[in-house]
């Protein structure tokens, strides 16, 4: 099966890998936003995860510990955001942007000794004979463990939000913090935990970039992936599975346009290179006009600070 010289199985397999950092960061941010907090500092947390993960993996020789380190580093940074917005009631938009600025600077300082080092390699999960199944072997059984983990996390977040009490409380806090407070829930504590969770996942996304996707450290390695993750959350209208869809769509078009170029397609490159953004917008327009209310799915308290006056 060939589409203009491009093998669809290989294409799908590539886009699954390309989308992992965005999926992880976006699903984390989704939980944060579900709790009513808008953290625009995803890019800063991702790059902190990228350097902390890299440093840990190089130091310990274990990529797995690297991911833990990346998650911890980014969660620590997100704690700054949590304290500022939840305790000091600072504006969330501005604090998030400042977090990105701070994260970019701090990561570069930590990373000064790590330029030009190769981290320990992460191999693909061995599936034995399954890998040889035509098409599905390439698409489903040729990846490293984080690819599967990212999908599992999406499923878990979906299930928790939909079926559990924890999910219900989280959504209540995001929809109306005053009502949730009146019901006796610790709004601030829940939000801080959500922010830490979002930070940890953004950090894992960053670590995926520096440990697997582009195994190296350089300044600014995440190159704007955090912003795309933010856009994907909105694109998904705060629904977990749509995060996966949005990230695959975006990653898919990015990979496809490069493949089209490599295959010598005659579409002008400048249009190809802006296509991921335009098509994402287009799909969102179709989705929101068709359903009418897709864009109104935002948590009602999103971006508002909570102060228990009573």
């Amino acid at each position: 099966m060939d589409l203009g010289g491009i093998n669809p199985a290989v294409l799908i397999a590539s886009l699954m890998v390309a989308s992992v950092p965005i999926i992880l960061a976006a699903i984390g941010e989704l939980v944060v936003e579900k709790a009513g907090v808008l953290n625009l500092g995803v890019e800063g947390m991702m790059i902190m995860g990228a350097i902390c993960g890299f440093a840990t993996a190089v130091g310990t020789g274990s990529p797995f510990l690297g991911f833990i380190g990346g998650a911890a580093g980014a969660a620590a940074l997100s704690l700054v955001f949590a304290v500022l917005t939840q305790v000091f009631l600072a504006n969330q938009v501005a604090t998030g942007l400042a977090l990105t600025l701070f994260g970019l600077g701090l990561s570069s300082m930590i990373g000064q000794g790590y330029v030009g080092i190769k981290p320990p390699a992460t191999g693909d999960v061995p599936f034995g004979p399954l890998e040889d199944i035509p098409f599905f072997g390439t698409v489903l059984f040729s990846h490293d463990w984080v690819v599967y983990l990212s999908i599992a996390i999406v499923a878990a977040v979906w299930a928790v939000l939909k079926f559990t009490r924890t999910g219900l409380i989280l959504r209540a806090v995001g929809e109306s913090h005053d009502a949730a407070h009146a019901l006796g829930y610790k709004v601030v504590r829940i939000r801080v935990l959500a922010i830490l969770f979002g930070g940890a996942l953004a950090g894992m996304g960053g670590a995926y970039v520096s440990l697997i996707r582009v195994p190296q450290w350089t300044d600014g390695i995440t190159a704007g992936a955090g912003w795309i993750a933010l856009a994907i959350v909105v694109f998904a209208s705060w629904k977990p599975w749509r995060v996966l869809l949005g990230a695959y769509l975006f990653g898919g078009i990015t990979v496809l346009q490069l493949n089209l170029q490599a295959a010598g397609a005659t579409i002008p490159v400048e249009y190809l290179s802006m296509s991921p953004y335009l098509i994402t917008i287009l799909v969102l327009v179709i989705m929101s006009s068709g359903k009418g209310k897709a864009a109104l799915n935002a948590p009602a308290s999103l971006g508002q600070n909570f102060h228990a006056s009573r």
Partner: protein
Amino acid sequence: MKRRTILKGGAALGFASMLGGKMALAQGLEKAKVGFVYVGPIGDGGWTFQHHQGALAVQEAYGDKVEIVWQENVPEGADAERVLTQMALSGCNIIFTTSFGFMDPTNAVAAKFPDIKFEHATGYKRDHANVSTYNARFYEGRAVQGHIAGKMTKSNKIGYIASFPIPEVIMGINSYYLHAKKANPAVELSIVWAFTWFDPAKEADAAKALIDQGVDVIASHTDSTAPLAEAAKTNGAVIGFGQASDMAEYKPSPRVSSIIDNWAPYYVKRVGALLDGTYAQADAWEGIAGGEVEIGEITDAVPADVKAEAEAMRDAIAAGTYHPFTGPINKQDGSAWLAEGATAPDGDLLGMMFYVEGITGEIPS
């Protein structure tokens, strides 16, 4: 010298020029303050990193006789002009500006400080007597890479990850292709335009796209090691080259050789000339011969005969007996560019906006 008191008052710039006149007399200097303006972070592992290595070499060479200062992450445009002016005000005797986008700011500031020397990398404007330009003939290195690529490819498909459609990049593509073709007439070149100098994830995707298309030798004109890392995942099936820095961590394969930007010889030479009073305006465009372009070690992943041929080509270019653009060469549309035996004039190369015959696709514009 009472720099501070002289500069008091509004017309600081005018005074600064007079002052500079006293400091940079033709007899040379006791001590020179040398400024470097970088477009990226030193930690980029590529372009800026290599310039900073050159700066450190200057310090190493002259010790106490020089003081080096530098500024990273300077955006092109208004910010560059300000950083340059502040460096000039701080008493630098010579300032190297290391990105094409600094061209107009460099010339504008040079006009205000006629006695401070300015050196602009990769540009062509020398509007004032105190502005020099310098560049490196990277296409010479591309020729050696092209030869290795043509010999090494098994699929007869080779790839090139390009940044932006500018002469510098197109020169490299043409040189790479011509020599690959000469080594292996069946070779086909796939070009992917990343439209970025630095985006590791995108570079990795571009490399992967090329590999998916059956390409097994990848050259890149973007700055990160991501394409090599992607090639490394194929367990030796795909090879590539280090770009800007040696990228030795990917030796012996996939990195089979590299083009190293080595600015140290030029920086040391120019600062030396300033110190001993022999400094003169220049338009330097040196390559393998001058040491600006270094061919990183060709590893054992390359068969000995190919390695010997590549090294012979390198030495011939260095000796001046071989020019990578030697006719007959036609343009992509079949029209003649260079006649039999003719070599490309520098002017043609510096404005090169066409592919040579045999490359498919169009240059984006």
